[in-house]
């Protein structure tokens, strides 16, 4: 019954090919991958529940990321520093995520079957609103308490905000050097803790209901499960996890490009979880862990590989963008495709 999952295998092969041509040292790549792992894994984790709930890939995790950024920005505007600031930003961000997640969930309940395209459009819409609030609203509607982040025109937040206060606030806790490899043990444990919480959650009664909804909404409904409520819950959780993921991401980077930091997080995360062996209809926590490692190792080596093969690093960049989109495309075609298209399908139904 066990089939070999092709996605991780092919990513591994691509990675080794890339590693060979990039001529990068394994230690360097390993260090980079560990950094990427603690930086990105929680964001990817946010995709698990919606896939289990049958809503496909939740491209609206960018909205969760934006909630985190909004939280941080408001805390910076209020000028709360240090750990207290970081924690209150996280709480604020989760508050936003819960509210927005509820709205997104309501919305997706009305577009059953087209959730993925809807989440993409919701992401774009949220991006517009986010820009409207911080590029136009700050200094006009929102009083500009913090003049450091104000644009010179007197309206709008600057596109780059320094997060020196929060930089590596978590990463620095309990770092172990193993030869040349640096392991931020606390962060790795934190990420794994997040993973375990999600894995635990799937095995609770609610988790069972989420699974049931993901299998077949009609049947779940008939069996007495409140499908719409479950789907809204899943959306709220997904956005909240994404929000925390973005908080971790930003404190790791330490610089905050206000209007682009959330940019491609949806596509990269989606490609990562699929690389780990998840499908549009099935995902597990281990797909997240495996996927982040595989996808990001390929991501790290491909520009250098491009440089060495074609004498052009840009080709490597295009290659990795292509890989990200192509991974999703292939997953869509394989998972949503019907192998044999019958001439027609009508269901004979009693009235």
């Amino acid at each position, binding site marked *: 019954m066990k089939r070999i999952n092709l996605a991780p295998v092919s990513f591994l092969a691509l990675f080794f090919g890339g590693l060979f041509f990039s001529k990068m040292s394994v230690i360097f790549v390993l260090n980079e991958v560990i950094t990427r792992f603690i930086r990105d894994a929680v964001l990817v984790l946010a995709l698990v529940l919606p896939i289990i709930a049958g809503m496909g890939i939740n491209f609206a995790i960018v909205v969760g990321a934006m909630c985190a950024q909004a939280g941080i920005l408001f805390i910076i505007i209020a000028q709360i520093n240090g750990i207290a600031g970081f924690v209150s930003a996280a709480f604020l961000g989760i508050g936003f995520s819960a509210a927005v997640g509820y709205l997104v969930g309501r919305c997706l309940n009305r577009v059953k079957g087209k959730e993925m395209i809807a989440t993409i459009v919701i992401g774009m819409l949220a991006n517009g609103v986010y820009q409207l609030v911080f590029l136009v609203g700050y200094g006009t509607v929102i009083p500009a308490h913090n003049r450091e982040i104000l644009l010179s025109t007197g309206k709008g937040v600057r596109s780059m905000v320094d997060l020196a206060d929060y930089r590596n606030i978590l990463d620095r806790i309990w770092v172990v050097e193993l030869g040349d490899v640096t392991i931020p043990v606390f962060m790795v444990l934190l990420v794994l803790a997040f993973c375990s919480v999600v894995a*635990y*959650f799937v*095995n*609770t*009664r*609610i*988790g*069972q*209901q989420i*699974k*049931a909804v*993901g*299998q*077949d909404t009609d*049947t*779940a*409904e*008939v*069996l*007495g*499960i*409140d499908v719409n409520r479950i789907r809204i819950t899943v959306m709220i959780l997904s956005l909240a996890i994404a929000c925390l993921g973005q908080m971790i991401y930003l404190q790791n980077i330490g610089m905050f490009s206000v209007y682009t930091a959330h940019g491609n997080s949806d596509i990269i995360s989606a490609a990562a979880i699929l690389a780990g062996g998840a499908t549009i209809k*099935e995902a597990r926590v281990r797909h997240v862990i495996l996927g982040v490692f595989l996808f990001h190792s390929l991501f790290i080596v491909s520009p250098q590989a491009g440089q060495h093969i074609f004498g052009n690093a840009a080709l490597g960049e295009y290659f990795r963008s292509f890989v990200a989109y192509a991974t999703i495309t292939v997953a869509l075609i394989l998972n949503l495709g019907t192998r044999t298209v*019958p*001439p*027609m399908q*009508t269901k*004979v*139904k*009693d*009235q």
Partner: protein
Amino acid sequence: MTSVLRLERISKSFGPYRVLKSVDLVVDAGEIHGLVGENGSGKTTLLNIIMGHPAIQESGGYSGDILLDGRRVEMKSPQDAIQAGLGMVHQEFALLPGLTAAQNIKLGRENLHPFARRLLGESLAYVDRARDRAEAGAILRRLGIELDTSIKCGNLAVNLKQYVELAREIGRSGLRVLILDEPTAALDREDAHRLMPLIQKLACQGIGIIFVSHRLEEVLEICHRITVLRDGEVVADLDQGDGDLNLDAVARAMIGRSVVEMKRKGNSPVGTVFMKFQDFAVDMPGEMIRNFSLEISQGEILGVAGLSGHGKLALGYGLMGAYPTRGRVLVDDRELDNTCSSKVLAKDICFLPDERRCSGLLLDRSLVENIVFTAAQHKHKFLRLHLGPLSMINWKSSREYARRSVEWFGIRCRDVYQQVGQLSGGNQQKVCLARAVALEPRVLVVAEPTRGVDIGAREAIFEALLRINQERGTTIICVSSDLADLKQICDRIVVMYEGEVFAELSSHSQDVEFSLALGGKRLADNAAS
């Protein structure tokens, strides 16, 4: 005995269609109550109302009362019904294929680790899978089934799925009424026989059972009472005690009116045999034809009858190649190629499907467009600028033809530009016929031409079919679950049973012959037993 479930004056409409008309039904504790009726008689709607199916609320709810143990209850959602102690075994299985048998059986009632439960509450406590598996296995063993409950339901054989579905319902504490919707449809005879004592055992525990099946012999075997639905009304309530519970009575009640005025005046001169079905089989889910062999003569009107599930509907679909087929169909001694529906139409064979609204019409388009559509595509009629596929539709000749058709068929409409979706069912059917006639077909296959059509319009549709047959010499194959309809217009009627031609009768045959044939019995058998 006391009644557990009592339905009073249940009515339900979908838009303008009244599907249930003041239905009363009483189920006693420990009673097995049969519910039978043809396709479209309203059975499924009634069951959906009892179970609080979301489709009912979305289409405006129901009227009438549901009383459970004498108390009035409102079924607004499946949760309500399940809470109240109702359970249902679904015909198409309400199982989740990716969950294991144990997970399916214990869904919503999982065993929880007590520590986590105290700490985090019911919803967030960890599920105790080992105990779930053990308990699910125990319930299945009560049904006489030994099964590894960690197998995913999607991988189970059909008959095992049926038991898992049953196990989920009876594993529930506080079950008062169990609805079995076609529980034996997926089982072979042996398995079906094994199920009967289990159902009787459940009834002995004081659970009220509603048993729905197309296999009338089963219903007669185990039910204490039988309610027959037809066209949304209770037409018979037969009791074992009264001694009137027999196949003939039930079948007669199901198929309806027995006094019929023959429309077809005498047998029209039937021409030569030109079309032959040889071991024709259609793999249509739920309506499989196993073997259909028949010769059809030029200019006759052939009726195809049968209870639903016995394959009568699949004839037209199979002929057009909508589902995989085996065997041969010969037209003028040449084999019909049905790999592509246009090749069938090229042989002047036209099919009007039973799903009139979604497959027989373009509801958003006008009468003109509907009537000329197929002829323009296949006969190159109603075109100008003959440029192959780029020929323009000639709206002038189309309009004139549509007007003539409206007159010929007596279609009631504002004008020929009215949207077909706005017409009544009968007029929509006439538009379908007009579309078929524009093709000048040699063979016209119509499925359920009178379903969802009121009495007056029925007559008009028969007239139209007879006129098409008489004036144009079109051979008509009419598939219908309404036997009275077929008897009015057909030269001969074949009765399908379990996917095969069971009997060939004439419209002069006695009602009892028909009703027996529908249940797979012959007059002689009946007399012998």
